């Protein structure tokens, strides 16, 4: 569609591709735009990243003294410490990421665009996932150095990826709700943690299995559980996201 408009005695054209359709490329373009915008803003301010990373390191520090991480205990609790760290650090990331949308009314701006609401959801999921993965990828080698183990194993990275997807899939939906409440600063972990318990259980079990060199047959059910959880909750959030943003 091409529209002619007059502007300051000048004729210029605005080319709009056919809008309003739910076609595939439109959808992907909108998802891409949201991700690009989040990464660009974050790349500039590094607020979210810095906060999540420092918070993660502080949690590990606290665990170090709380659990007295000597060589014996370390072996059995590493997976637990890692996932507690990611779970806690994840909430500040999610909270901040959605607060940015709420601050200057940007959420309304997103909703005013002629794109499917689920494109906004998937865009936010991808950028939240990116923030989380970046932090995780930095925490892992630091933990490895601090405790003289090697956490950079492909299997473990896979589990972390799967666990983070599930966490972010639910977290993005729930943080979109929590920022629209009066108690937005405190609500997210309370809403999120009881729902992501399966992710934490499965991810800890699978990570433990990998770190202790367990049989593949012992690890596989947990991987399956993570995959199933991710599929189920991405679908649930996809169906429910409209109700969380539309009035």
């Amino acid at each position: 569609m091409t529209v002619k408009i007059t502007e300051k005695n000048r004729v210029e054209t605005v080319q709009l591709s056919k809008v309003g359709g739910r076609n595939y490329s439109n959808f992907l373009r909108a998802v891409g735009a949201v991700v690009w915008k989040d990464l660009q803003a974050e790349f500039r301010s590094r607020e979210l990243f810095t906060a999540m990373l420092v918070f993660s390191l502080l949690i590990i520090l606290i665990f170090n003294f709380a659990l007295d991480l000597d060589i014996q205990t370390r072996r059995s609790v590493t997976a637990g410490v890692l996932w507690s760290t990611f779970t806690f650090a994840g909430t500040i990331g999610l909270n901040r990421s959605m607060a940015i949308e709420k601050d200057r009314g940007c959420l309304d701006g997103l909703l005013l665009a002629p794109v499917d609401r689920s494109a906004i959801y998937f865009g936010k999921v991808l950028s939240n996932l990116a923030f989380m993965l970046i932090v995780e990828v930095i925490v892992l080698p630091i933990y490895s150095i601090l405790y003289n183990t090697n956490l950079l194993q492909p299997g473990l990275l896979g589990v972390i990826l799967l666990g983070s997807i599930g966490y972010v899939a639910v977290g993005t939906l729930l943080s979109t709700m929590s920022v629209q409440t009066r108690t937005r600063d405190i609500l997210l972990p309370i809403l999120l943690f009881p729902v992501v318990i399966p992710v934490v259980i499965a991810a800890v079990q699978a990570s433990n299995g990998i770190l202790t060199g367990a049989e593949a047959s012992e690890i596989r059910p947990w991987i399956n559980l993570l995959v199933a959880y991710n599929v189920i909750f991405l679908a649930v959030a996809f169906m429910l996201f409209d109700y969380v943003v539309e009035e």
Partner: protein
Amino acid sequence: MIQVRKLVKRFGLKTVLRGLDFEVQPGEFVALLGPNGAGKTTFLRILASLSRPSLGDVTVAGHRLPGEAAAVRARLGVVSHLPLLYGDLTAEENLRFYARMYNITNHETRITEVLEMVGLENRHRDLVRTYSRGMQQRLAIGRAVLHDPDVMLFDEPYTGLDQDASSMLDEVLKTVAAEGRTVVMTSHDLARAEDLATRFDILSRGVIAASASREQLRQSNLLSFYKEALAG
């Protein structure tokens, strides 16, 4: 351009809009006036497809709401008292983001054009966070006209602006209106509205209590018309 029939909006038990009728012809600039809490913002949010009507028919730019919201959104530009911009992006990046969301293919030329129109061509590489309130508001208008909408909605665009910023905003609004767009603007500032609008509608107790065009109003002044409408 806009037809509203018997619009009712309830929030729980509170009824904000009670069977409101409203119509705007193409090219009209309607100032929607009324006291705080009369339901102006609620009404505008319904026209903007951001809120669903409880009852009644709403048609904007030939499409019904909320059913054909996507089609309405493509032809609608909205400016609220919040700028709807990202502080950590530059003006240019903000516009580029929205251009992608609206699927504008020649966005680089359009962005330059819009920045020029709102008078921010020299600050386009600065973060929006560093902008003054007035500059943010002008950029917000640039954002809203980016996809060349037929209908524009302004919700209290002058909120928090000083004298200079307000008169600059006046210029931008006049340009926008001069392009033949249909505009609905809520305001509690009668003087501003009187300057810009071609028609004045008073929203009171959930309905349009009175409506007068600029011509009809010539005899009496806007303030007394406003007061009469609220009293009646």
